[in-house]
């Protein structure tokens, strides 16, 4: 009988398996092909839905473009489909449009296309994300002057109209007016090739693009829920870029942490006792050891925050001091408040959202322990997104328990007006503060321009953090992206909303 050694059998099997797999496995990427893996399938690929980051990551500046862009460095407005813009009077802006631009369906890009896109985005029947969020509260009326000139009129003063136009992705005038589209037609460097639901989206370079041809010809975007799987895909060559790698998976030299424009914080419900006492709210801030959280539960590159926007946002105030860690002082403040009859021993609920960022539950468990050490009676309740939104959004129950809520606020639009009104004024639907002084300050700042605007917003941020103490600011957050070593791509602060495909190439 012929005997085969185990080692030889194993080697033979492995060789056969590898041979079979080499046939079955996808080829490693060609120099002009790129696969990007993200967490979730987009909800919509309609150009008017790009206020949701899952949608804009695929569309923005890949398939569709807007009149202007915002610089990732400082939020300043740069040219896009418009080459210049100016304010004609308080209520009117003029945009001069780029010539020689065509949509993927061959239609020319002109002032009529801008007018159609703006009208469509504001159509209440369509419930466009851009109309419901960025363009909310102002009526924008387009007026076509000539093919290359469009006026945009507003019903109230809109000093940062160009910033808002950066959110308006412009689709072909043939985009259906009576419903959302799943086949967007834009002017971008890529056209949508295919969307296989549940599997992938393929983009192909558009031969008649007005700008430089992108080095990557075919880009595929796929989604995998598991961070470990996303990370592994770059290791195996199945993908070249993977976003949102959990800190525990992001330990290789190919993992790049970048600020993601999000600020993590706890919102204090300051209308309910004992949180209606400022000393108690100060004690909350003093009880948290932020240095102890960085590099342990939060990424080492997260920055301690003192307000809810990053330095790249107009209105950021560099002079607000970061809260020190002083549990003794927190205890003393609670004792003083208790002596004055404030019910500081009442149970406070700390509402968290499962998975709002990596280690979200762990971070709140640590914070709960810190608050308990300082003398607070805190109960932690982790919620799934839908019930958490009920706690975030008004209206709230009048007889509710005192609570603090884990949240994070992003601002990629470069101006504080995209953060403050909804979250910190009496009318804001997520605001837990109703203070006429702050309302006035935010309203004045929203109407102002230039240095005055910056100064007033800076004052507003100081008022929230130092005078009112409505929040427990935690960190300016980072996201980890894994990038294959042969790919040239550096994620910036806008990478959460935009995969800048045209700037990516193989080394």
């Amino acid at each position, binding site marked *: 009988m012929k005997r085969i050694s185990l080692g030889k059998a194993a080697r033979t099997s492995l060789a056969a398996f590898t041979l079979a*797999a080499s046939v079955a496995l*996808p080829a490693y990427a060609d120099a002009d092909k790129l696969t990007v893996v993200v967490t979730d399938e987009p909800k919509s690929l309609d150009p008017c839905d790009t206020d949701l980051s899952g949608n804009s990551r695929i569309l923005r500046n890949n398939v569709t473009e807007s009149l202007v862009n915002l610089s990732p460095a400082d939020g300043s407005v740069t040219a896009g489909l418009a080459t210049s813009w100016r304010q004609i009077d308080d209520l009117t802006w003029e945009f001069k449009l780029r010539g020689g631009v065509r949509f993927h369906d061959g239609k020319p890009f002109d002032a009529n296309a801008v007018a159609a896109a703006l009208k469509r985005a504001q159509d209440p029947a369509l419930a466009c994300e851009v109309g419901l969020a960025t363009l909310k509260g102002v009526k924008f009326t387009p007026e076509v002057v000539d093919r290359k000139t469009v006026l945009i009129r507003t019903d109230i003063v809109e000093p940062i109209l160009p910033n808002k136009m950066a959110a308006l992705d412009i689709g072909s005038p043939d985009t259906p007016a009576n419903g959302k589209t*799943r086949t967007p037609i834009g002017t971008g460097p890529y056209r949508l090739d295919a969307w296989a*639901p*549940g599997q992938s989206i393929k983009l192909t370079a558009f031969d008649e693009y007005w700008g430089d041809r992108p080095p990557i010809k075919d880009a595929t975007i796929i989604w995998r829920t598991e961070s*470990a*799987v996303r990370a592994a895909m770059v290791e195996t060559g199945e993908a070249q870029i993977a976003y949102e790698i959990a800190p525990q998976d992001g330990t290789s030299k190919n993992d790049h942490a970048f600020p993601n424009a999000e600020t993590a914080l706890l919102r204090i419900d300051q209308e309910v006792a004992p949180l209606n006492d400022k000393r108690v709210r100060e004690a909350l801030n003093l009880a948290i050891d932020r240095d102890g959280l960085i590099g342990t539960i939060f990424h080492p590159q997260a920055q301690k925050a003192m307000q809810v926007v990053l330095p790249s946002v107009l209105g950021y105030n560099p002079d607000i001091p970061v809260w020190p860690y002083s549990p003794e002082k927190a205890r003393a403040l609670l004792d003083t408040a208790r002596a004055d009859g404030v019910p500081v021993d009442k149970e406070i609920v700390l509402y968290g959202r499962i998975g709002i960022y990596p280690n979200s539950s762990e971070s709140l468990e640590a914070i709960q322990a810190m608050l308990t050490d300082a003398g607070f009676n805190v109960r932690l309740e982790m919620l799934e997104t839908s019930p958490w*939104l009920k706690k975030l*959004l008004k209206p709230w129950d009048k007889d509710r328990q005192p609570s603090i809520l884990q949240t994070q606020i992003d601002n990629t639009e470069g101006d504080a007006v995209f953060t403050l009104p909804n979250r910190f004024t009496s009318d804001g*639907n997520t605001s837990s503060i109703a203070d006429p002084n702050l309302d006035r300050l935010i309203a004045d700042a929203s109407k102002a321009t230039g240095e005055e605007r910056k100064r007033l917003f800076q004052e507003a941020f100081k008022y929230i953090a130092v005078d009112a103490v409505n929040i427990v600011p935690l960190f300016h957050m980072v996201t980890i992206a894994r990038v294959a070593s042969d790919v040239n791509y550096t994620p910036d602060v806008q990478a959460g909303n935009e995969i800048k495909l045209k700037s990516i190439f193989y080394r």
Partner: protein
Amino acid sequence: MTLMYFLRRAAFAALALVALMTSAFFLVRLTGDPVDLYLPVDASDAAREAMRVRLGLDRPLLAQFVDWAGDLLRLDFGMSLWHNRPARDVVLEALPNTLALGAIALTLAFLMAIVFGSIAAVQAGGWIDRGVNVLSQAAASVPDFWLGLMGVLLFAVTFRILPTSGFGGPSYWVLPVACLFARPFGTLVQIVRGSMIEALNASFVRTARAKGAQSGRVVFIHALRNALLPAVTVTGDLAAQFAGGGGVVEVVFGFPGIGKLLIDGILKRDFAIVQASIFAVAVVIFVINILVDMLYAAIDPRVRVE
């Protein structure tokens, strides 16, 4: 199997389906308002209300139920909020993938369990039996999620012989199938082993041996036929579980099946997707139960289906 039997089963299944879908309708609505999830946080109250009106969520629950039940009779499950397509189409795309995945995993598990369980039973108490016992218990208890990630690490990242995840040619099926295979394999080995030991000690086997029948024939023809019934019953139950999809496995591997769809539907409060998925899975379970009964009767002629 008589037509009468089939009609009676179908009537019971229809009643169960009505009860299931009714509870699904009300339970899914208890989990929260999709409008908050679907609109930007900055959206105004008016926009939220407009969406509620558009979706009919502002109407009394009973009125919503009546309309929904009418649509259901026409197998119209409504539009998926997330996919912006008819929920029926989305579910019908995902269901075959899950059925194929489950069928492959379960068939392999069943066949291999028969082989391993029978060998262990024949060698009961010996080292092979002990080895099979350890293997099967480990397989029955290992979490899908962990097994999936370990599979990715070992076979995709370290050896590079399989893709990490996705959907495509045969290589994409290996890891998901292996993950789904483990638990039923472990369970079935234990069952086959137990019932085989019992069968091998039964008087009819002793008689067969006494008559000089060959050992292999005794084990695989005489004993196995009798030992199969419990395994078939459990496989039927496992198949019914699989009809709902290996949710965790499908999520880990980005496999576009009904388990992943259902999980996503629940998380995204996509009522139409949740309801359509539950309906599809329930129908499949009904069909599987009928098939198991037929198989049962085929294996053991003493069992009469009526």
